[in-house]
């Protein structure tokens, strides 16, 4: 028995030492090889922004938006990137959907949580995340897998990039509306967590001396008509408050966009993105 226990202990100690060594190596590589933004303009947000603004049409820009990205993830990304970059303007996607608490459920959602954790394991501060349900076990599992098993050079999977499609598939918006604003068929309330993180992003930008511009990307008329009234009112109130604080808000949610320029009811396609990118590029180049 003693021999067995000694060998099991020895084996376990070796394994733990191996994990610790890998962790130390990955801490170093994640810092040493942390992503840096060399562009002047940084485009951030969820898939709406990812597919709406092509940085090629900006003077010096990088689009790091990613699908299903809640505002707190955007905040973590900016917190990591801004101090070590030469960014002077942050273009943040901000729309009706950003006020929905349902987009915050991604960290506990079976389909999305591991994808999100695999992106943000080096920048996430989940312990201080209040009001958001988090699958902590899955988070630490992702972190362990990415940091403790083998040496990894690239830890910047939270950096997205622009991509798009040259097609248009416009379906009835019912499914999107239900996914974005309804829980068990009932309207959800506006998320105070997102309002709070929006405030944090505003404060962070001010602290880092970066101009923050909020952009609402175009959505299809059929979708807009189905957005619950309190979300429209909440969005307008938030917009007003932000403007009062000197933040530029470019609301193009109801921009006149033809069907052929939509990928679906909430995303632009390649053609739509080209036109919209030029428009936003001109707008942000012109001081108000």
């Amino acid at each position, binding site marked *: 028995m003693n021999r067995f226990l000694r060998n099991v202990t020895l*084996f376990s100690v*070796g394994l733990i030492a*191996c994990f610790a060594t890998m962790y130390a190596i990955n801490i170093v590589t994640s810092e040493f090889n942390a992503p840096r933004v060399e562009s002047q303009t940084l485009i951030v947000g969820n898939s709406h922004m990812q597919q709406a603004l092509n940085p090629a049409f900006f003077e010096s820009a990088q689009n790091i938006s990613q699908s299903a990205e809640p505002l707190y993830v955007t905040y973590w990304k900016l917190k990591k990137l801004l101090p070590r970059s030469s960014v002077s303007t942050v273009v943040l996607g901000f729309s009706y959907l950003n006020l929905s608490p349902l987009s915050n459920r991604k960290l506990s959602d079976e389909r999305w949580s591991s994808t999100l954790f695999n992106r943000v394991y080096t920048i996430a501060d989940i312990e201080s995340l209040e009001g958001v349900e988090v699958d902590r076990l899955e988070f630490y599992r992702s972190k362990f*897998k990415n940091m403790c098993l*083998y040496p990894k050079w690239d830890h910047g999977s939270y950096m997205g990039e622009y991509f798009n499609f040259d097609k248009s598939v416009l379906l009835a918006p019912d499914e999107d509306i239900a996914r974005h604003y309804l829980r068990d068929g009932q309207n959800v309330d506006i998320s105070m967590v997102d309002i709070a993180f929006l405030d944090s992003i505003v404060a962070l930008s001010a602290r880092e001396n970066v101009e923050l511009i909020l952009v609402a990307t175009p959505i299809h008329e059929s979708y807009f008509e189905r957005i619950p009234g309190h979300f429209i009112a909440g969005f307008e109130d938030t917009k007003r408050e932000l403007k009062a604080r000197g933040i530029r808000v470019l609301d193009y949610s109801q921009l006149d966009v033809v069907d052929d320029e939509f990928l679906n009811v909430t995303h632009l396609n390649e053609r739509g993105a080209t036109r919209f990118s030029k428009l936003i590029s001109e707008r942000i180049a012109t001081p108000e």
Partner: protein
Amino acid sequence: MLFNSIDFAVFLPIVFILYWFVANRDLKLQNLLVVVASYVFYGWWDWRFLFLILFSTVVDFRVGLGLETQDDPKRRKFLLLCSILVNLGLLGFFKYYNFFLANFVDAFSIFGKEIGASSLSIVLPVGISFYTFQTLSYTIDVYRRKLEPTHDFVAFAAFVSFFPQLVAGPIERATNLLPQFFAPRTFEYEKAVDGMRQILWGLFKKIVIADNCAEYANAIFNNSAGQSGSALVAGAFFFAFQIYGDFSGYSDIAIGTSRLFGFNLMRNFAFPYFSRDIAEFWRRWHISLSTWFRDYLYIPLGGSKGTVWTRVRNVFIIFLVSGFWHGANWTFIVWGALNAIYILPVMLLNRNRLRLDIVAQGKLLPSVADALRILFTFCLTLLAWVFFRAESVGHAFEYLAGIVSPTLFSIPDPFPRSTFALICVMLAVEWLGREQEFALAGLGLKWPRPLRWAMYYSMVLAILAMAGKPQEFIYFQF
């Protein structure tokens, strides 16, 4: 509690330490600890169903004692019948009630009669099919006077609920496992190390092979309409390795865990995908269930003796019942029937015991003829797995019809190359270890320790790094 969970990783060392350091001086105390640990293990999932196990245990314990004192054949038969009715009654209610009800209603509707009957919301207790068969083996063997009934309730309860094999087997025979609860246990280093190696290999098969295969197989089977023929074949292929990795992995963990506690469980899988004919496959796949049916159903029915008609009937009965044991769905029954059709020619021609040896024994590679036989047998099982995995019989036929299309010869897109490579690694290790009890049993035993440990470390890291999305063990639903 799942074997591949953190809960079990904490539970096992605690029970191990208590078993060998606290309860080691008293056999009864060790058995009691096994019972408590087993009930905690099972109750972790749903404590309410513990009463079901306890009830089954009490009934069969009492029946066993009754059979000991009873000499009247009629009364003995009555006692056995009580045990069978109680156990199969519970199984029938929890597992098959809604199935029979739905089919009863459907049957009447064919004749234009509508019956109003609503199905019940019944939760299937995990492992009920396994422990029911295990405890039945006890009463049947006592009835046949092959086994002395036990007077030790704790030992009997430990036999029924022994946690390593409680929820998904191997379905142990009372004649093998029960006496082990009366034998003094001494810790054997070699046995424990062997157990650890078997656990490691089981975890690899479950977490790396089965869980990764499941992602692709689920994606294909859940959206089979519109898939290319080659993608459908790939879906069935990955399911074949999902179910093998899942179930044989579970069995390896169960057997390995038992060894840590000084117990020897029966072998459940013997490299079935290297079988050269379907009879050999069934001697190597889910051995504990196949032999259970052989001993308690097939042989009492007459087995392979009697007229051709009797033999055909017996083969169909055993495979249909085996299919039905897996679940209350016609897909399992068709799966069983298909296997009966496969094996029938072999049985009728008395060629079912042709290949009792190990394929290419003592050689590195099989002969061309053996390789072709292995491939043919694997294709037959692949076809049957489509019925096993499909949602309904109609779905299975649609799936198979989808395979027969010009797209059969296209390259499946997407195709999980890395998972395919992992399957190849697993098959290579299993091929090299096919003459052993389990694939890893002999691998590296003579290597110097640093090399051997490097292999273990690589496996642990592979399990952690290449784990698929965690899936529940398939056989839990049975």
